[in-house]
């Protein structure tokens, strides 16, 4: 049930033309009997030649340029907007809250966020939109922006999420008897863990162009993950009908959650300006604006109290999670929910209490980012467990083997894990590939040698963790391990409420066309959907087209989020394809779909299959009590990291990572590996260098020169191992892959730093400052 993929040894292929050739994966690397081959990325040639059109590449003749006037304070009353009399306002259009024809709200859950702060209203965060301006050229636009001044009256801001009395959401998940559990513990370990903001840092900034329609509506084209979220927002704020609000996805240069909700704001702003000036309006953020104004990963404080028996068996977990929602609700309750449900880690424990709350602060709103609440809590859970293992002198691998969920175990919500449970499998695969125990022995010997005061003593060339660095650098090396889980698809009854639809059409002209709202932003949607459908229909991948993500053409397949595209929407397509095949073969007895479909189309005209989501059998969740099946299935991930810590500067180089991820049935090994490798590096960045610094509620490092992400030189050598524990609820057995690797990288790196240096870092990122500080203090854990 394990797929081990190695770098392929092969010469360059014959260059592909518009229909890419099939990709051949070396035989013998897959055991599932499926997916030995996968098609080349469908839109790959367009992306590789510069032909692919991203939002800012699109030309709209006569388009004006739009800009957003933003607040410069974290909290204030907006007294008024002053327009400089010296500026010729006839050359531009200005839009304020008073010009909004419909509801001045942009929301997914709670109606608290205005599209523009009205005069008299409260500014709740720095960089909050107050007004909009559009001009025929950039110079006039710049001048107009300078000529608008917001008059405000400052109010007292709140920055500490633990001190805030405005709670967006709170949950309590409990099982067993906590006091009784702690009473049976041989050891109790406590710890507090903190994580800060993280920026998605898609390389393409937010960009949307709005074009007025003749029917009084608007067409918006841009960089986005969820066309139907924007569709809903436009209808509400501009008072438009379903057809007047029209959303088209351009090629999208990365999302990672950052283009789940925020593009609704960009689209509303562009659309309001287009309505005001009667021309197309380009709303294209530069990096500075994108960094300073758009959503980030939620900062969090997580407190653990863990009771454990001498043999490492967990008996009690008391966990408190506090997330900083920022100034508006956005998706915070759902992020927090996922955080609460994953907070204990993938471990059996009879007595658990998880209390989670998210509060409001006067900082820009936080939102969706790959992992969606899980990376924060799993960093805490895994670091806590590593500290428990250390206190018991049990290896990090062994304590996980003893506690990891197996089939039949129940989670704190009472969910019995009936199938597709591969925590132990991924753990062993990663540990084996990284030779984890042998590496640990090696670093332990080096530490012992160093503390014995040899020539490589502490501060000597070998350092505490051993291994002298090249070119005279004094480094210590260490290895670390982490294990994680990630609920596949929406939380609780989310998928039932979404009621997503995916469709396949056999057109009267004999074309096979997929219709979904699922967007391509690099993950491979446009490649795996035709692949899945072609396999069911018995036709070539090239015979299956995929319709553009355009709300006038495709149904609402739900948002492209929560690692749900391959599992949920892919599953709908497989079912739709089976129905289409049965329909055509029934009408053409004795002939296969592949033989018959062209003739069938000529005789019967268009046949369209709409497939709506049906609840997975036996999966039930009670949103009111938080009991039941929180997710239809879980993905499982293990990660080992090897680090070199510079003894003089405290800088961490992550040199090697092994990531073993169970994603259910693998549809396309190359694309799946790409998800694991990319997610792993984002986790390494989260662990080591990515940090937002704030002053008076403003992001200080809001440029790419100061918000640093890993380069090719910073990136470790990443070995991705795909494990297959199929999920029977999905017709093709697939679970999600996108978010899973993001959950485990950071705790693995922090464990490796501990192995090298002997100190626990309780706060991400593990910067040189924090490491050097930790070297001077003792840990905060208490041993009962």
């Amino acid at each position, binding site marked *: 049930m394990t797929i081990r993929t190695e*770098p*392929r*040894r*092969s*010469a*360059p*292929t*014959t*260059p*592909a*033309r*518009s229909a*890419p050739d099939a990709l051949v994966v070396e035989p013998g690397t897959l055991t599932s009997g499926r997916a030995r081959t996968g098609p*080349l*990325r469908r*839109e*790959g*040639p*367009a*992306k*590789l*030649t*510069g*032909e*692919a*059109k*991203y939002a*800012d*590449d699109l*030309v709209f003749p006569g388009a004006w340029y739009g800009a957003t006037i933003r607040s410069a304070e974290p909290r204030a009353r907006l007294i008024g907007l002053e327009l400089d009399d010296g500026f010729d306002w006839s050359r531009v259009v200005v839009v304020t809250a008073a010009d909004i024809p419909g509801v001045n709200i942009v929301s997914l859950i709670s109606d608290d966020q205005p599209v523009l702060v009205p005069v008299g209203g409260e500014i709740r965060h720095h960089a909050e939109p107050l007004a909009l301006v559009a001009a025929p050229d950039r110079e006039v636009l710049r001048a107009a922006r300078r000529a608008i001044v917001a008059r405000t009256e400052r109010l007292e801001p709140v920055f500490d999420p633990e001190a805030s009395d405005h709670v967006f959401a709170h949950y309590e998940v409990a099982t067993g008897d906590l006091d009784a559990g702690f009473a049976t513990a041989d050891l109790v370990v406590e710890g507090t863990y903190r994580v800060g903001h993280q920026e*998605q*840092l*898609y*390389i*393409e900034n937010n960009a949307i162009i709005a074009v007025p329609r003749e029917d009084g509506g608007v067409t918006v084209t841009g960089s986005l993950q969820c066309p139907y979220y924007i569709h809903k927002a436009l209808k509400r704020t501009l008072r438009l009908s379903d057809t007047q609000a029209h959303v088209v996805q351009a090629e*999208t*240069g*990365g999302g990672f959650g950052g283009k789940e909700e925020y593009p609704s704001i960009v689209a509303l702003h562009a659309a309001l300006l287009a309505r005001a000036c009667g021309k197309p309006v380009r709303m294209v953020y*530069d*990096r500075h604006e994108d960094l300073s104004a758009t959503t980030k990963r939620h900062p969090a404080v997580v407190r653990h109290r863990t009771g454990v028996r001498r043999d490492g068996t967990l008996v009690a977990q008391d966990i408190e999670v506090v997330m900083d929602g920022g100034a508006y609700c956005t998706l915070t309750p759902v992020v927090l929910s996922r955080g609460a449900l994953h907070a204990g880690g993938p471990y059996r424990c009879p007595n658990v209490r998880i209390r989670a709350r998210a509060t409001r602060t006067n900082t820009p709103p936080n939102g969706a980012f790959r992992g969606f609440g899980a990376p924060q809590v799993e960093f805490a859970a895994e670091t806590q467990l590593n500290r428990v293992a250390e206190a018991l002198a049990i290896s990090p691998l062994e304590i996980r083997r003893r506690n990891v969920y197996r089939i039949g175990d129940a989670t704190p919500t009472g969910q019995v894990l009936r199938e597709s449970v591969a925590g132990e499998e991924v753990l062993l695969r990663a540990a084996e590939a990284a030779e984890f125990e042998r590496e640990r022995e090696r670093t332990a010997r080096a530490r012992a040698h160093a503390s014995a005061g040899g020539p490589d003593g502490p501060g000597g060339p070998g350092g505490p963790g051993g291994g002298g660095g090249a070119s005279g650098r004094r480094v210590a090396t260490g290895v670390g391990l982490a294990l994680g889980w990630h609920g596949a698809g929406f939380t609780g009854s989310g998928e039932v409420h979404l009621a997503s639809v995916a469709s396949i059409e056999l057109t009267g002209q004999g074309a096979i066309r997929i219709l979904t709202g699922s967007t391509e*932003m*690099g*993950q491979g949607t446009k490649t795996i959907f035709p692949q899945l459908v072609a396999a069911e229909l018995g036709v070539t991948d090239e015979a299956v087209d995929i319709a553009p993500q355009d709300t006038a053409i495709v149904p609402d397949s739900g948002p492209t989020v929560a690692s749900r595209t391959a599992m949920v929407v892919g599953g709908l397509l497989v079912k739709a394809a089976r129905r289409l095949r049965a329909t055509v073969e029934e009408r053409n007895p004795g002939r296969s779909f592949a033989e018959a479909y062209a003739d069938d189309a000529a005789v019967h005209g268009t046949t369209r299959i709409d497939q709506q989501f049906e609840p997975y059998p036996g999966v039930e969740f009670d949103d009111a009590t938080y009991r039941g099946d929180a997710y239809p299935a879980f993905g499982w991930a293990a990660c080992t990291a090897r680090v070199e810590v510079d003894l003089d500067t405290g800088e961490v180089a992550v040199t090697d990572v092994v990531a073993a991820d169970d994603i259910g049935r693998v549809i396309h090994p*190359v*694309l799946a590996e*790409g998800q694991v*490798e*990319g997610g*792993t*590096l984002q986790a390494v960045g989260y662990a080591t260098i990515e940090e937002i610094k704030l002053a008076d509620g403003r992001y200080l490092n809001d*440029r*790419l020169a100061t918000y640093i*992400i890993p*380069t*090719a*030189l910073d*990136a470790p*050598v*990443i070995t*991705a191992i795909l494990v297959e524990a199929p999920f029977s609820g999905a017709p093709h057995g697939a679970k999600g892959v996108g978010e899973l690797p993001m959950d485990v990288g950071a705790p693995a790196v922090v464990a490796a730093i501990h192995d090298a240096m002997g100190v626990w870092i309780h706060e991400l990122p593990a910067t040189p400052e924090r490491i050097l500080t930790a070297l001077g203090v003792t840990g905060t854990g208490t041993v009962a």
Partner: protein
Amino acid sequence: MTAFRFLVNGDPVEVAVPGMRRLLDVLREDLGLTGTKEGCGEGECGACSVILDGEVVDACLVPVCQVDGGYVRTVEGLARRQAGERAADAELDELQAAFLRTGGAQCGICTPGMLMAARAYLDAGGGPDEGAIREAIAGNLCRCTGYTKIVEAIALAAGGDR
């Protein structure tokens, strides 16, 4: 306004624009070559990398006056193309083909710049050594791939048995 003359992918061009206009804007807006992307506008991300007289440069940092008489290569010039043929229908060069085969392009926004940095590396005789490849693309940020398959693609194009 002065007229500036230079070669883009072998074709002579002449643009009459202010000399301090960014090469990036000249390529994207004046010449319609939108394959070159803007990610930060301050030389940090490399999405706008082009080859100017054999050297990789960030087109967002180069004023067009510095390009006068020079030779600019962009992503649109990589594939072997017949007259009038769309770039996507052209025959990919071995570097583009290697990216396609290994999965080196995901969202694709860093890809044009990454390809130009890699092209310059290969043209300068760079081989399949992983460390050298990582060094060559260190100025080009990618947020999707973890760089693994990009490095693999460049090594493959360099004739490496990686």
